[in-house]
């Protein structure tokens, strides 16, 4: 099931939200600089 996740571009630093399906690799492109160095930001678990 696709869910929303936060992503960060490691080229320009742009952060954005996009659809994300766990365990299904997907080609990602930063909407700002078009780089593929896009990393999903995992939200830290609350203590």
């Amino acid at each position, binding site marked *: 099931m696709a869910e929303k996740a936060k992503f960060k571009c*490691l*080229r320009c630093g742009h952060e954005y939200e996009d659809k994300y399906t766990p365990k299904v*690799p*997907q*080609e990602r492109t930063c909407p700002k*600089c078009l*780089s*593929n*160095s896009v*990393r*999903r930001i995992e939200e830290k678990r609350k203590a």
Partner: protein
Amino acid sequence: MMDAGRHQNLTLLAYSEVEHVTGYIGNFNVKIRKKARYVNEDECTACADCVESCPVSVPDEYQQGFSSRKAIYIQLPQAVPSAYLIDMDNCLGNNPIACGKCKDACEKECIDFDMQDEIIDIEVGAIIVAAGMDVYDPSEMDEFGYRSYENVITSMEFERLICAGGPTEGHFVRPTDYKLPKRISFIQCVGSRSSKNGNKYCSNICCMNTIKDTLLLKDHYPDVQSKVFYIDIRAFGKGFEDLFMRSKESGVQYIRGIPGDVWEDPKTKNLLLSVEDTTIGKVQVHESDLVVLSVGVEPRKDMKKLQHLLTLSNSVDGFLLESHPKLKPVDAPTRGIFYAGCVESPKDIKDSVTQASAAAARASIILNAGKVEIEAITAIIDTDKCNYCGVCARVCPYNAITAPDRKSGVYPTIIQAACAGCGTCASECVQDAITMRHFKDDQIIAQVDAILEENNMDKIVAFACNWCSYAGGDLAGTSRLQYPTNVRLIRTMCSGRVDEKFIIHAFKKGAPLVLLSGCHFADCHYISAVTWTQRRVERLWNKLERLGIRPERLQLEWISAAEGQKFAKVMRELEEMRKKVTDKEVKETMEILAKDEEKAKAKKAKQAAAG
């Protein structure tokens, strides 16, 4: 088809489904389910006595639901073998009280209600995939009134209505009043070339199909007026432009513009189309007795199942991906498998026949040779290092590695004929139990060492896959595009070959920035190897962050062979990033990684001592 059915070297398994495929080029094992027809196809003469006695009547799928068929039927008149089958979902059954009339009517006693599905196992050397495509269903969009108005039909439905073997025996009538429509409008690109509805690609065949239909109409009914609403007419095949001109000269009106709205006159059931004729820039309303939607084609709904069955990948449009678009257009990435027809892309009959002939010729090369030349670059397993984890078998895009079994002490084995040499297994094996023939670990590490031996702070280490990114770099060079000269490329066959340790080694040796570059997902020459590259890079980003190293210093990029511009742009951007990496940061990274290595060694030694 009749010739195929009679050919002594061909075994036709109609009404059958492939259930499982194992093996590799030259040695495929295929399990086929031959579905029960409940009619002995060898004895049936298609006399139709059974059909006359069958009391069930259901919509005929072949006739697009315009007429009905019986529960015992032949799917289409030209079906080979020409034998009946029973549709058990609708048949009343063999209960004498309920029915069984077909059995009584059949003098040759061909009907067998106890017939079971048969599982057939065959060994084949090559496989040709000719599974076809689906036709786009315009029900999901209602701007053309397909769901609302009976006199809006698809090009497939038109085909049945005008066909001599169709439900009206070729007497063309419109559905509401069964009268000959005098004004017919064709709307092109329904479900094609749209980012909103249907598919983005051009379906290739619809323009010529409509031109053919307009000529058919003119031939059968010279008084019928036809109008074609189009974006642009694509008539690029041999003789196609002539056909288009003939259609125009015969009086068919071609209007450049797609109707924005279609509505019905409730009294006459005629249809009104509102359209902007873009050649004159005016909005017009056209009245028609019948509207034909020229629907596109799309990949089969069960394409994923087919892909899983044969270890194939698909391109962005959902059709099957070929091994190489120019040099191996009929070969699948998995050796020994070939494509014919629309399973690979939308194409007309002529192109399908051409591709089928090419696929048959390619397959016959394998069969006639009797032996297979294996790739020079394949993987080898060192069983002394293997710990039976099975990762290699799981990541292999070609299913070329048999799974190990720890309990029985069976190591994974690499089927050399099936291995394509992507190197994903070697990169994913944490035990380093897999080595490649060529592009070995020590060869790649030696290249990293050589790059960073002098002036390391000025260098960008870039790993590029042979087929796409490296070729993209070539294109940038031959196109004389300017990009920084301090980028040092290390070529691997696939980005999947780039082991985590190569990247860590580059940072350990003082690389300010590392790039890992491969094919776009839909272009990957090793089916799905590129997805493992992405997973690995994501793992590495996490690891670098954990160690206190900026993950930004490892960059990832998908560059195709045609993207010379992108290659140059990426290199310029990376150079800007490299300039911001300080000497202090690089030295700290080297120290962190040296310590981490020491820690890992100590841990390993402790584990070894503990047994």
